[in-house]
């Protein structure tokens, strides 16, 4: 009857072959526990059908000069405005220093790129931005209702004014409306939402 000696570490001696087995078994258990957690975490990531809708193709040929459309992308609005020459000129005339947010906020360009109008559009006539106010997520009003004091967009929730490059000019919003990943597949079709493999910045001139 020496059962006490059977218990691990009961005799308080140096680690032996016996202890090695306990440590190994415990280690394997810990690794297994960690691995088995992964599927249960990963399952909450977007599913394949959701990812399949992660990009959309939009035909912009029907958007007349001086008008805009709102399309649904990843569960929220994207503004596509076909700007007039006057609007483009107005956006380009703004000094960087006059902007509350001097960054381009353009997913196609590296962070920290200056927020000139040229850095926010691929083709000057088409401005494409995500349509949730950077303050608290409301959808700003546009051409149809109220363009605000800077001829762009006006957010009625808390009074943010955006200009014709969708940059914040006045109000509580901290950042410019962000530009999503996109490129023109054809002259009139724009693909919004790209996989990393597709991301191609060559068309974007940083200035």
């Amino acid at each position, binding site marked *: 009857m020496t059962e006490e000696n059977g218990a691990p570490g009961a005799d308080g001696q140096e680690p032996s072959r016996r202890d090695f087995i306990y440590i190994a078994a415990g280690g394997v258990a810990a690794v297994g526990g960690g691995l088995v957690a992964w*599927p*249960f975490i*990963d*399952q909450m990531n977007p599913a394949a059908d959701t990812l399949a809708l992660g990009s959309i193709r939009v035909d912009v040929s029907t958007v007349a000069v001086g008008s805009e459309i709102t399309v649904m992308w990843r569960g929220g609005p994207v503004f596509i405005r076909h700007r007039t020459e006057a609007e483009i000129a107005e956006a380009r005339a703004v000094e960087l220093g006059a902007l509350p947010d001097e960054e381009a906020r353009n997913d196609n360009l590296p962070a920290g790129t200056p927020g000139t109008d040229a850095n926010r559009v691929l083709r000057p006539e088409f401005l494409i931005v995500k349509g949730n106010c950077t303050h608290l997520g409301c959808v700003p009003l546009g051409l149809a209702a109220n363009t605000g004091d800077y001829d762009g967009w006006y957010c009625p929730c808390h009074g943010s004014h955006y200009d014709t490059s969708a940059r914040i000019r006045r109000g509580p919003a901290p950042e410019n409306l962000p530009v999503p990943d996109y490129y023109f597949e054809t002259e009139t079709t724009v693909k919004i939402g790209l996989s990393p493999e597709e991301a191609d910045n060559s068309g974007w001139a940083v200035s």
Partner: protein
Amino acid sequence: MSGPSTYNPSTGIEKWLDERLPIIRLGYDSFVDFPTPRNLNYWWTFGGILAIFLMIQIVSGIVLAMHYVAHEDYAFESVQRITRDVPFGWLIQSMHANGASFFFVAVYLHMFRGLYYGSYKAPREILWILGVVIYLLMMATGFMGYVLPWGQMSYWGAMVITNLIGALPFVGEAIREWLWGGFSVGQATLNRFFSLHYLLPFVIAAVVGLHIWALHVPGNGNPVGLEVKSKKDTLPFHPYYTVKDGFAIIVYLMIFAVFVFFMPNVLGHADNFIPADPLVTPAHIVPEWYYLPFYAILRAIDFGIGPIDAKLGGVLAMFGAIGILFVLPWLDTSKVRSMRYRPLTRWFFIFFVVAALGLGWCGAKNPDDFVLGIEGFKFIYLAKFLTAYYFGYFIVILPVLGIIEKPKERPASIEAAVLGTDKA
């Protein structure tokens, strides 16, 4: 718990906590230092296995509920979406569906262990009854869970089982309609089954807590069926039984993994890959395998007795087959717990196991088919015979044998049995 607590808080924090909420002490006394008979064999590992599977089912179920849509138009598709599009959804769905079967395998082995070694006898009647309650809750949970994928078997299984309720006199029809929330199994039924299927596992977990509590008052039974007499009869639960249970759990998980990864649909039914159609009944409806013995008992009663017609009789027999387990502790008149020392009863028990498995076989077959192709020997006849034996075992055999049987000589104590100093 038996005996004074041996927990000694070793750090200041433990001591501080122990004076306020002695939860570590509770865990220590219940699962570390708990005195456990030294002679438990592998049949005693199924309790731990069941605890693990309850956890697997709850965790995987919560995850599935994040993606499942309880709507008659989308339920089937949403389950398919889980297996096709959700990251690792195929794995989690397979774990949950096969997990139910493995849960039932373990619970049946656990119950047979209890029947063989007399674990239901005084002072463990409440422990046994709580176990039967858990089993009933599992049956209800499993049944409602099987309805959720809304395939043909889901739908028609729900139809058949809910129609059983309609057999009750006077109130049957009203209760059935109340269960359905409509004039047939439909959207309302699906939605409430989903709600209840989510709720019941937590009720099970609570009753499991009571079950373990009721276990820790008298302590474990054991293969020789003698009560613990001295400290020499026991070992601390940890590390002796944690490591033994752990080994059994891993081996059981290996078998589980073979099913989950290599034959995920073997225990299911092809018809459940067809979306539910209220206008077409599958060629023959079979419930999940773990209900088959009771399904056979239901169908075995195809005759009326006095005012009870065949339909009601079947329903009563089916529920009676489970209900009789509640009174088992008082039906078995023998003073001897373990069948090791009951030479006669043991043979009747062996045949009881065969009968239970045989009823499962009958449940899977068309009642009018011939057993092994023997002309004239219909499954319904076999089912009737086995049903009679099932009830006879509890109502006649156990009470009578307990009185007339002369048990074998038993060892003086657990220690004596282990050391072989007093071999029976």
